[in-house]
């Protein structure tokens, strides 16, 4: 019965990922099971050492830190996308599970959605 929210846009240049995160937090706040999947350029959300101060934006990695507290069940990342964007395992924030978003993985979710 889990809803998977997919974030596939790089952070900071687009607001859709933040709105995806809000969807996940809302589901969790209403006790609905949900998880997040980062794929494509969205895996850059998971990079350690983000310094968005120069942009005047809040760190998305920090926003994401609240996911477990809100009750988001899991953070998944497409392992291949991480490789493509040069995200070595030690450059990924804690608590992320690397997966291949294939049919077997996706069919484990009742619903899959994007913020836009």
């Amino acid at each position, binding site marked *: 019965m889990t809803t998977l929210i997919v974030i596939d846009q790089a952070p900071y240049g687009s*607001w859709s990922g933040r709105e995806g995160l809000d969807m996940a937090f*809302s589901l969790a706040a*209403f006790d*609905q099971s949900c998880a997040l999947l980062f794929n494509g350029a969205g895996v850059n959300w998971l990079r350690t050492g983000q310094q968005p101060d120069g942009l005047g934006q809040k760190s998305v990695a920090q926003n994401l830190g609240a996911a477990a507290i809100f009750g988001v069940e899991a953070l998944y990342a497409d392992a291949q996308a991480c490789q493509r964007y040069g995200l070595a395992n030690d450059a990924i924030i804690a608590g992320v599970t690397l997966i291949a978003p294939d049919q077997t993985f996706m069919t484990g979710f009742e619903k899959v*959605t994007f913020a*836009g």
Partner: protein
Amino acid sequence: MADISLQTYTVVITGAPYSSQAPQTALDFARAAVAAGHQIDRVFLYGDGVHIASALICPPSDEPHWPRLWSEFLAEHQIPAVACVASALRRGLIDSGEQQRYELSAHNIRAPFEIAGLGEWVEAGTCSKIIYFHSGA
């Protein structure tokens, strides 16, 4: 061909009018669904989709007026429509309540749209099929 059983849909629109086709495609879907006997239980505007609820959009007279066309469709079929409050406030879509709360000079929500929280979307997910119309970016 098997009959398609009648469904209840929630329409979510995240693409803005005039910068994406999402509101137009969503309206075409909604009209076709209603014509075929399906129910639309609500329309939820999220992200840039909240601009559909603006009372101040003035396209040139030879272009479709998507906010007005949506309003007319919603009123005709008595379908409730909600713009996400967080998305709406960020983008300057304000109802009279938010105008007072933030001491703003105006409000600009087009009837019958209302402003509400993401809880409306969460609730929709528990009782109907949600169909999303994104900008495709």
